[in-house]
């Protein structure tokens, strides 16, 4: 028997390996390969590649599909943009009102300070009503909380204890600030009244430590700068009460 006259091209060899030739052509290519052992070996290797792929990955077909992939999960995915949108609207509304108030009260000395106080107050309003997730790391992991936030802020961050002022630590979280990472500690008294202490790295423009005060509706904010960090204590308290707590924070940090 002589070799088939038809020329077998590369695409046909691929199709042969994949079993995609019709019966007649398949037989012709097989006959041609019988006289071309090198090509035959190559095509056989391709066929085995396909087998190996199935051996490797077909077991995935039998794995149970994780619930997250079974249907669109409204809470985790489709709800997200809406939630995010709502949060941005809230942020702008609160920030706008607060900024306007503080501008009128002439309490604010510079744009960056104003931004600092606004961020602290907004973070207070956003997180204190939170029932399920008020903090990222709870008070029971206080050492970890301090170490984590110190690492992220790049300076040593201490967690003040305000038990003497009647407030227990709830925990803390990492927040975005205008200078990079910022931290928020949350405290709570026996009645569930919450205060937050917002901490961020100071941009170096100021070394003042005087207490400053701003107020927006029911949220009072005492703020001060102490070394490398700026602090803002926010709460729904009147000024003298909040000042007492702010002084307690200051003394805790400067024993």
């Amino acid at each position, binding site marked *: 028997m002589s070799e088939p006259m038809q020329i077998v091209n*590369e695409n046909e060899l691929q199709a042969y390996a*994949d079993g*995609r030739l019709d019966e007649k052509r398949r037989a012709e290519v097989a006959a041609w390969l019988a006289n071309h052992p090198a090509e035959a070996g190559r095509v056989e*290797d391709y066929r*085995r*590649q396909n087998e190996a792929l199935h051996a490797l*990955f077909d077991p*995935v077909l039998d794995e149970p*599909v994780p619930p*997250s992939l079974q249907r669109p999960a409204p809470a985790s995915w489709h709800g997200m943009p809406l939630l995010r949108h709502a949060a941005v609207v809230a942020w702008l509304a609160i920030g706008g009102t607060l900024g306007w108030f503080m501008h009128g009260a002439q309490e604010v000395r510079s744009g960056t300070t104003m931004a600092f106080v606004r961020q602290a107050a907004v973070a207070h309003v956003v997180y204190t009503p939170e029932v399920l997730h008020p903090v990222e790391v709870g008070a029971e992991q206080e050492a970890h909380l301090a170490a984590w936030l110190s690492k992220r802020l790049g300076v040593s961050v201490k967690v003040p204890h305000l038990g003497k002022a009647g407030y227990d630590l709830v925990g803390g979280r990492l927040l975005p600030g205008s200078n990079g990472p910022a931290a928020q500690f949350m405290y709570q008294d026996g009645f569930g009244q919450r205060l937050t202490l917002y901490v961020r790295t100071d941009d170096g423009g100021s070394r003042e430590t005087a207490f400053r005060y701003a107020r927006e509706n029911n949220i009072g904010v005492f703020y001060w700068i102490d070394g490398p960090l700026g602090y803002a204590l926010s709460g729904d308290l009147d000024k003298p009460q909040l000042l007492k707590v702010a002084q307690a924070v200051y003394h805790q940090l400067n024993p």
Partner: protein
Amino acid sequence: MEKTDHLIEEHIPRLRRYARALAGDRARADDLVQDTLERAWGKFHLWRSDSDLRAWLFSIMHNVYVNGVRKSSSSPMLLPLEDDALDVPVRAAQEDGLQVRDVHAALGCLSQEQREILLLVGLEEMSYEEVAKVLNVPLGTVMSRLSRGRERLRQIMAGGAVPALRVVK
């Protein structure tokens, strides 16, 4: 909507299989599937019911994958070599000389274009025309990439040792 869910869900196991082979590890693969499904649910009204749903879904996954690769172009997706990083339970070892695990590692040495085509043809068993449609490239490109990819895989296997792979985050 329920009909939509059902239609797409039928394809999830195959999308996962392909993603696992493409992305290498389970976590990244399921992220890829999830992103693909998100897009598919959201764009289902754009799918023409007379066209092939599987091709449509794989084509979405291709785009999600390519965009992801482009975004992290400084960290190419290579397959990890460590045994315990292989998230795929290997079926009974083949006796015919081709080391299945080596194929897994060698896949990572192919270009992304070659890998996709090898998998769509060899694993997903799509026709060459379907592959061209899914990847939105001419049929001739599919054939030449398939041929080059298979030959490269073969040479890597024949060389015994797979070129050193790094685990890239």
